[in-house]
C-alpha cells in the first residue's frame, strides 16, 4: 500500500479574519489531486467547522489531512479548554460561543453537527483543561 499524502496546517487562534484558510487550501489541494467534487465538499466543510471551532474555543491548534487510497482522514488537535459535554455539543443549536463571535454569523450550534454530517465517521477525544483531539474520516469509495 502506498504512503498517505499528508498536508499539515497550523491554525492561528488570534486571527479570526483568516479562519478557514487551511480548509480552502485543502480544497485546492484535493482538486489538484483529482478528488471527486462531492468528496472535496465533504472534507472541506467538515474541516472548516473544525478549524472555526479551534479558533473560537481553543486559541488555534494543529490540523493534518491524510489522503489514503480508500479514505481521507482529518486530524484536529488543540490545547483548549476541552468539551464539557460532547453529547450536548453534538446537538444542533447548542453553542457556547460568545456574543462577539455570534455577531459574525458563527455560534449557531452547527459546528460539530456539520462535522458529523459531512464525514463518514468522527471520533472526539476531549479532556477538560487539556484539549480536544478529533478524527474525521471521509471514505473515497
Amino acid at each position, binding site marked *: 500500500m502506498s504512503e498517505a499524502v499528508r498536508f499539515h496546517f497550523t491554525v492561528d487562534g488570534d486571527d479570526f479574519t483568516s*479562519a*478557514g484558510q487551511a*480548509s480552502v487550501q485543502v480544497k485546492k489541494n484535493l482538486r489538484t489531486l483529482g478528488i471527486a467534487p462531492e468528496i472535496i465538499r465533504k472534507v472541506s466543510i467538515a474541516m*472548516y*467547522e473544525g478549524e472555526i471551532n479551534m479558533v473560537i474555543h481553543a486559541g488555534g491548534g494543529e490540523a493534518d489531512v491524510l489522503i489514503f487510497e480508500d479514505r481521507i482522514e482529518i486530524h484536529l488537535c488543540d490545547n483548549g479548554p476541552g468539551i464539557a459535554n460532547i453529547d450536548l455539543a453534538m446537538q444542533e443549536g447548542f453553542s457556547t460561543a460568545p456574543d462577539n463571535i455570534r455577531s459574525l454569523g*458563527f455560534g*449557531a450550534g*452547527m459546528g460539530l453537527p456539520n462535522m458529523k454530517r459531512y464525514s463518514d465517521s468522527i471520533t472526539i477525544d476531549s479532556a477538560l483543561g487539556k484539549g480536544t483531539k478529533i478524527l474525521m474520516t471521509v471514505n473515497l469509495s
Partner: protein
Amino acid sequence: MKVCDVAEKFSLKPLSVADSSREITGVYIGDLLSWVMGRAESGDAWITIMSNINIVAVASLADVACIILAEGVVPDENVCITALQKGINIYTSDKTAYELAAALAQCLL
C-alpha cells in the same frame, strides 16, 4: 441561468466578478454561516446580509455560484478583493432577501 444574466436582469451591483459564467441552480438564504455551510447546495445563489470576510471562505467551501448581499449591504473593500482572489462572485442589491428570492424563483422554478 448564468450569474451574469441574473445580475443584468435584476440590476445587481457587482462587487467581485470572478466567474460570472457560473450557472445558478438554486437559492439559499441565510446569515448563520455554519447553517449556510451545512445546507447550501453547490451552484446556489446565496442571499445574505452578512458581509464580513468569513463569507468568502463559506462561499468557497460550499461552492455557491455567487453571494448576493440584500438590502444594500456593502462589505469592506478587503472582502471584495479577497473574493476576487478566491474566485467568488459577490453582488449587492437594494432589494430584500424575499424580493430577491421571489425574482430568482421566476427564473429557476
